[in-house]
């Protein structure tokens, strides 16, 4: 087509003219190797065996760091030198945020802001740019932040693969880059902070349900959206567990995070299969709706997993469910600020910085049910010691 030639021609012309470019020189790499699954469908291309094994091992690791402050703890630390980033304060810290479009990110971001408040003397300015869940905007945002004289850049990427070039471009500017939550396919950030991760989450939940369900039992897997890497990882780990346990995954359905849709799906599955012996979900958002579908149909709620959102924990306690809540703690939002300040002090930090990822079980449930917080608040916010608690999260 004409236009494609035009694109190429313009590109060539500009290359000849030797114009300025924001393009990073190192190319992105890192493709996934898959392992075929069975019964639950093909294994996702996001499944990386080595990562999976590593995360499962981390589940049993003991954390180092101050007790009672899991956001400062590290699993299997691997320290890196940061002396070259040492700088006198107070600092300007910039944060490119993938979005604030769900309660998990809201709760986390408030924790981060509160952490900034506690470090007021050391942070002169905290710049936050919200990409509203758009890759394209986040790339532009990062580029924009690079012109603002930030001392450190925190990035919570919207998508791993697509944000990699932008993060690499940021690294090349010479300022310390800290990535958390989702990672990037690059070693250039000073550190990557997150809890154990998706494999851990998916595995813990699937193991629990597989144990409670007899071999051949019918399990319904409810997922939010396809194509979101964190959620894909959780599901791929669950597949491994379910295949191993030999349970019958009768359906894998997407709920769009819509509780009404969830209830309808669960309802129809109950009718179609008579009984459902277990429900696995890749995120807690619609756990309450799924459990309610059973209650409304006048049936016992089968073994089910949720997350650390309070509405689910309350339902669990009040209805005495057989349940588990692996978490992806929101306290990880505090850590990047702490890490940024350490790096700017030239102190070594662990890279990657793996945070503990506690699981809420029947035994420790009571400790997490807080009657005063809103229903969609996350129990693992690690925010009780922060300024403004609890009002800030209400």
């Amino acid at each position: 087509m004409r236009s494609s030639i035009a694109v190429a021609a313009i590109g060539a012309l500009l290359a000849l003219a030797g114009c300025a470019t924001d393009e990073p020189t190192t190319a992105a790499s890192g493709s996934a190797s898959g392992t075929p699954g069975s019964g639950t469908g093909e294994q996702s291309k996001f499944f990386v065996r080595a990562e999976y094994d590593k995360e499962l091992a981390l589940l049993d690791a003991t954390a180092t760091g101050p007790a009672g402050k899991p956001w400062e703890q590290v699993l299997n630390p691997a320290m890196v030198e940061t002396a070259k980033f040492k700088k006198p304060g107070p600092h300007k810290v910039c944060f490119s945020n993938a979005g604030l479009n769900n309660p998990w990110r809201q709760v986390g971001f408030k924790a981060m802001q509160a952490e900034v408040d506690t470090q007021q003397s050391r942070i002169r300015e905290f710049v936050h740019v919200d990409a509203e869940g758009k890759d394209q905007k986040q790339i532009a945002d990062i580029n924009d932040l690079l012109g603002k004289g930030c001392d450190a850049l925190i990035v919570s990427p919207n998508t791993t693969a697509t944000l990699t070039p932008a993060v690499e471009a940021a690294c090349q500017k010479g300022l310390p880059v800290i990535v958390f939550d989702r990672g990037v396919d690059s070693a250039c950030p000073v550190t990557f902070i997150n809890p154990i991760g998706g494999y851990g989450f998916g595995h813990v939940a699937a193991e629990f349900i597989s144990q409670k369900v007899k071999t051949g039992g019918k399990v319904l897997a409810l997922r939010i959206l396809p194509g979101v890497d964190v959620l894909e990882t959780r599901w791929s780990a669950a597949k491994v567990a379910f295949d191993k346990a030999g349970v019958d995954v009768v359906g894998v359905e997407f709920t769009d995070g819509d509780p009404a849709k969830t209830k309808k799906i669960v309802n129809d599955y109950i009718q179609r299969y008579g009984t459902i012996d277990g429900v696995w979900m890749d995120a807690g958002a619609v756990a309450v709706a799924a459990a309610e579908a059973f209650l409304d149909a006048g049936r016992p709620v089968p073994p089910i997993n949720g997350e650390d959102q309070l509405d689910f924990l309350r339902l669990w306690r009040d209805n005495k469910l057989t349940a588990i809540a692996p978490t992806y703690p929101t306290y990880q939002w505090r850590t990047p600020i702490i890490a940024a300040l350490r790096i700017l002090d030239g102190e070594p930090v662990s890279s990657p910085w793996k945070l503990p990822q506690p699981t809420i079980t029947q035994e420790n449930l009571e400790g997490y049910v807080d009657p005063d917080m809103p229903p969609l608040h996350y129990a693992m916010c690690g925010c009780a010691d922060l300024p403004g608690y609890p009002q800030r999260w209400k």
Partner: protein
Amino acid sequence: MSTALPLPAGRTAPGVFVALALTLAAGWLIVTIDGGRLFSQPTIVSLLHVAAGLGLVAVGQTLVIIGGSLDLSVAYVISLSTLVTAQTMAGSDGALLPAVSLTLAVSAAIGFLNGLLVTKARVNAFIATVGVGLLLKGFLDSGYDGPAGETAPALVRSLGYQRVGPVPVSFLLLLAVAGAAWFVLARTRFGHHLIAVGGDPEVARLSGVRNDRVLVTAHVLCALCAGLAGIYLASRLGSGAPRVGTEGLYDLESVAAVVLGGTALAGGRGGVAGTIGGVLLLASIDAIFNQLDVDAFFKQVIRGVIIVAAVAVYARRTLRKAAF
């Protein structure tokens, strides 16, 4: 009989550029008072990148809207295009041309389908393109569980990140495409016919215009523009992303940019220049609010108000013109 002096057919630049100038001036003032800089190079580059992506789609959307139709499938066409581009390239510069051609061919085919549904099957454009969007959504959801493929480094270097001074190449591409679209509307038979079909399909038909052919072509061009936007996004993202179009709300945003630019949703009136103004206005609001660290939700409220207010202003003007 009217004694008023017959004025030449109006083709004045729409008020969106005035709004753009005012917005930038006010934004500059507020950002400066706030202690920031609106017109720093990185900010301008970011602004123009955001404008380039939306602009490419909006130019195509302008064409179908002028023709009295609508394309709400563009968001999915964009996502699909990034994937086709990145997967065909698979990181190799050699596959650049075939990949771009294939992407455009796929987009054109979808546009063709949209056009056929709207013309031959007489499905309302809203329903037809939402339906085609759903078809594509199913394909994307079932076929992809995340970013796939790798864009050729040459394309990333050129279209994705190259710039001339503060102006990204992608924005130049947008200007080229917009210029071409303007030229098509003003100087080709197709363009004249498209405006006629949008203005009054019956008049066009009885004047010997082949309405169906014109509308199908417009839909193909619109989808091609969406395909170009997909190629650009693939060059920006380095890979194909199955949700990038929907995340970016490119369907509704492109319609908003078009009407902000003074093109009538009913068809037959408007132009590409206004659309570029609308795109720049939306991108400027984005940039200003970014600088001020305004809550994204507040921004969304403001956006909604601005879109409605702008169209109300246009409507007032046409009302006044039409009165007596």
